[in-house]
């Protein structure tokens, strides 16, 4: 690659004096340090728990066999794996929408989304690794013997590999220009920026080029994304052996709930970023209202799916479906189920009210973001676990499963790890794209 030519002209406006980087990059504010240390600590606890597990096997978790052992063999790890994959939905979708439909108002949150996608995909991959007693054997054998007829194959090629890589490419291509601009300043990241810029010259031709690339990437990624999330749905939806799993609605259901949790996360993250990086001027209420509407659309669709689901399992259920639906609606899992429904409905109501009154408040939108994620986590858990403990097709005694501290520690560790990745990124690179105006 040929080195980029550095413009001699002093860049104007947008950000402060020479050498100073925008969005508090490189500045370790006390609050950030607190955040960093806290997250590091939680991650460490998670890692410690993981060491326990690696050393003594999954026996240290609350997981046990199905059937005679009357436990659940898939638990928190799988639930959160599904959740994290779901979250990854947001970024690329938003970014792609922006590119395809030219939604300028969302431009500023585009990179947050892309980053969110990359991070959550990594967390998803780690969550599934945590579920395996022999991670290395798994990685090798998956590459060596991977079989397309297993729904896991899609998950693991499409989602983990294809989707993740595509998102990285996308993130990179859309970040080069900023890297080039920052490379013009003296900072401890200069070399990094220059490397990333890879000789970017901010010409009209280059911009046209990038627009074309990103457009086509978006076009190819969107279907990939639908497929990817569907395959996760297929992991369950193709299984007739467990009550409440088999069904055509699983795949679309997964896609939509993925959207809900993803957008919800994006909203929260955007709100944090805008206050953390002095970009209130960039990320405006418009962005939030936009995301809000998007979320509302998906949420309504999902609530519709849920209604259909409830009707299906209660109207004329088979013996095992009945046992399961009882466990869900009035039994062991009722509090989780109705908790989820409540949070989703409240979120929908909040959004509808704002949409009708046309008066959007960032606070309220963020609140919905939080609510829908609570709902999403709960729903993922309810998809994975109850079908294993209740309504088994042979007269096995009813099972029980309670995640123990090891599992929780690892899951929270993963969240903290994600937070760390984003936090560090924010201190190295502008998480909000620099403006068009920052140009010759």
């Amino acid at each position, binding site marked *: 690659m040929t080195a980029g030519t550095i413009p001699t002209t002093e860049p104007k406006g947008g950000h402060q004096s020479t050498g100073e980087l925008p969005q508090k990059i490189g500045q370790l504010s006390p609050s950030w340090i607190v955040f960093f240390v806290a997250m590091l600590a939680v991650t460490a606890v998670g890692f*410690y728990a993981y*060491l*326990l597990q*690696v*050393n*003594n*096997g999954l026996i*240290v978790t609350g997981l046990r066999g199905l059937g005679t052992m009357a436990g659940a063999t898939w638990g928190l790890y799988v639930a959160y794996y599904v959740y994290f994959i779901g979250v990854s939905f947001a970024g690329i979708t938003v970014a792609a929408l922006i590119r395809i439909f030219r939604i300028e108002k969302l431009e500023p949150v585009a990179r947050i989304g892309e980053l969110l996608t990359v991070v959550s995909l990594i967390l998803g991959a780690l969550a599934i690794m945590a579920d395996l*007693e*022999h*991670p*290395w*054997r798994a990685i090798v054998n998956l590459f060596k013997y991977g079989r397309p007829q297993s729904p896991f194959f899609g998950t693991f090629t499409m989602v983990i590999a294809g989707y993740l890589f595509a998102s990285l490419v996308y993130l990179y291509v859309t970040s080069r220009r900023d890297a080039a601009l920052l490379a013009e300043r003296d900072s401890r990241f200069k070399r990094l920026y220059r490397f990333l810029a890879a000789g970017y010259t901010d010409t009209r031709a280059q911009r046209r080029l990038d627009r074309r690339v990103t457009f086509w990437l978006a076009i190819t990624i969107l279907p990939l994304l639908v497929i990817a999330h569907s395959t996760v749905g297929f992991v369950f939806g193709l299984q007739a052996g467990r009550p409440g799993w088999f069904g055509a609605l699983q795949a679309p259901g997964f896609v939509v709930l993925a959207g809900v949790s993803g957008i919800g996360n994006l909203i929260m993250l955007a709100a944090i970023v805008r206050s953390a990086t002095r970009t209130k001027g960039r990320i405006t209420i418009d962005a939030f209202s936009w995301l809000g509407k998007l979320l509302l659309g998906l949420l309504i669709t999902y609530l519709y799916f849920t209604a259909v689901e409830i009707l299906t399992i209660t109207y004329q259920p088979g013996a095992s479906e009945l046992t399961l639906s009882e466990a869900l609606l009035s039994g062991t899992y009722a509090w989780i189920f109705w908790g989820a429904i409540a949070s989703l409905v409240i979120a929908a109501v909040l959004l509808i009210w704002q949409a009708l009154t046309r008066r959007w408040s960032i606070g309220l939108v963020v609140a919905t973001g939080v609510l829908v994620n609570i709902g999403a986590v709960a729903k993922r858990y309810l998809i994975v676990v109850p079908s294993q403990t209740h309504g088994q097709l042979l007269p096995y005694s009813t099972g029980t499963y309670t995640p123990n501290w090891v599992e929780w520690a690892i899951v929270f560790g993963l969240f903290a790890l994600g937070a760390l990745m984003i936090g560090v990124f924010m201190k190295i690179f502008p998480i909000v794209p620099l403006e068009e105006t920052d140009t010759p």
Partner: protein
Amino acid sequence: MPEITRRTFVKVSAAAAGTTAVASKFLFGGLETVQHTDSLLLAQQLQEDTVHTTCWIGKQDCGIVARRIDGRVIKLEGLEAHPKNRGTLCPKGTAQIAAVYDPQRIKTPLIRTNAKGQTGEFRAASWDEALNLIAEKTKPVLEEDPKLFLWQKGRSKAKAFYDKAFVKATGATKLGHGAYCSDAGYRAAEYNLGCHGVLHPDFKETRYLLSWGWNITAAGGNKTCWITWPQQMLDAKEKNGLKIVQIDPRLRPAGPHADEWLPIRPATDMAFALALCRELIQLGYLDEPYLKKFTNSPYLTGPDGLFLRAEVPADAEEGTVGKALVFDLTTGATAPFDEADDPALTGAYVIDGVTVKPSFQLFIEHVESYTPEWAADICGTTPDRVRGIAEEFGRQAQIGSTKVVDGIEIPYRPVAIMAYHMAQQELGFQTLRAMISVAMLVGAPGAVGGQLVDFTWKVHKNYAKFENLSVKEGPYDYTLGKSKFFPINTGFPGILTKVMQDPAKYEVEKLPKIAMLHYVNPLTAFPSQADFLKTYGMFEFLSVLTPWLSETADYFADVVLPAATMEKYEGPSSASDQYIDGKTIRLPVMDPLFESRGEIDIYIDLCERLGVLYGEGGYIDQVNKNLPLKDEFALPLDEKPDVRDIFDRWSRMEGLEGGIEFFEKNGVWIKGPVSAKKRYGYATETPFGGAVHRLYGESLLVAQNKQKELGADEVYYRDYTAFPTWRTPTFEQSPPEYDLTLISYHLVVHKQSRTSMIPLLTELSGKQRLDMNPQTAERLGITEGDEVIVESQNAVTGETRQLRTVVALSSGFRPDVVGMPHHFGGWSPKNNKGLGPSPNEIFYTGEGYMACTADQSYHVKVRVLKG
């Protein structure tokens, strides 16, 4: 799980220190360690062979082929040629492999170092030291009075020659386990029919079976422990459409194989049987030829309840009694029973101014009041079900029909009762007599498809003994044999504990000084644990011979001798399934593990030290007498025998090619089919071996009179009646708040204390539980899995006992009954710890909780409280 976490912490710190360890774990997940053990296994060339042996647990000694790798037994499989198990095994059979290798077996002889009555502390000792100590303690007692040396054993394995020989050679007093099993049933059959056994069907021919009690698919019964009966029962159902009526508070015994389930109240079986008798008489289902010819029904009975007898000729020797008289309808006069053409069964006759009646007439009058309504009320069922069963039993009996078997025409009565272990109740002896009476009315005993008692129709010596029961004046020996308390008494450890607590009450002067326990483990295996805890510490010296440190040994043994499990010779044992006869011998699957030894070796060495091994009447001599070994095959009385040689001599004496090698090669010796002449009472040389079947128990009445004479309390004599006579069992008199009846039963996977030491079997049996009908649970506000306190009450002493367990709901139980399986409540070897209590902890023994024949009852009233 504090232990785990501690371990994990250690592991983690280690891991944190050396990340490489973690890394390798991460990379290879510790798989290599596992494969390593395999490679070890596969490294060298493996020598594979098989050894013939027999089961060491069940009482039917199934034939087993042990598969060995380099001399290590890896699997036990059924021996195809063995008639009893035909190439199959039950869970116990396969699982005993874990017993062979159990590291918790006793490895060396042990000598106690702490006080008795608490968890024992022992020191390892050599065989010499241990045996010398026993000899030193035993000799003086043998010199003073050998009867004061108590020798007690659990279940016999194979032919009990070697232990009989020990008892005979030393002159010790023997106690068995029969009083906890089915002895009262054996006594009833011996009394009424003369055969040694408890009622079982002729499965190849029987069409209608009253499966009475918990046995049929749970524990086999007579002569078999499990496999054989189920096999024959299923074949009978498929081939002959055998109909099974399950009479028990639990459905489980016959389960899906029951065509009809009649859940009657516990311990009301006699009432039900008596009502059946009444109905059969009412319906006229009577085999008069049988009753007249082969039973004492026609015997004329006076107002005193005694038979009218012919004059004794003057020249007759002292003590001979005259033949019982009957009323001959052809001559219209009395005649000795064996001289009358047509003896009357009914009516009343005035002889010498006295009105006398055939005992059958008395029976008719006796059962007159036992109506279906009466029985239904007592048993907790409906009159028409009583009638229905009586009707079908009578009809199916096909009275008058015959069948030709082996060329002999034999009466055909395809109805039978299977009632093993039904004697385990306060009215046990008379209940079994009532059941036998049912079979007798239709002439089923000894008929084709009818009521069988033993595999061959032999008359047992007890039949003659029971003609007049000897009831002596005190003082009595501590087993109360021939006492005014128990005119019939096989030896009951339970009553021994009562005697030891109050010898005066039982007019006993000398208590046992020292004791030796052979396998038996009274502390957990026998009901009323409290009584054994009180008394088994009273022996001056107690030695226990057992493979594991039994609870009794743990608390009371001075010396413990390690017995081998399967790694020893035992035998010979019957391989008969009642149709094909055979014999087998257990061959050791390997050398005894640790320092354990086979029982025969142990007794030989002990007798040598006691000076009772050699010479006339010595142990060797007794072995020759009891095995037996005759003529040139007899062991020389002056040289120490070798165990293999004992069985080799026996095999050669039986004419087997190569002696013991025959069994090493074939595993079992098939003698061929059991002929009809041997099996059916009607077909034996003199029918029924010449025994007159006692529908009427004259000698029981005589015994009762003697008991009264000698001033025995009513509790001891009230059940010595000529006919089975119903009375409400004592336990029913507990206060009403004790509203449930506790019953106990065996699980298929358990037999004898030893199975509860085998973790593979306790795994299958699961934890202890209290079975309860859902209706009852709902009433008490209890749900599946709740912990509860079960409190029993002794209706005689008012004592209460408690245990804690967990409820398991089952609709296969009468709502007024709760149940608990046996083989729990151990504490000594950790194998069987923590699985829950034994019902024996809250059962009672002694007056009111034992039969008139000194046999244990397993019924008690309880209440269930939330734990």
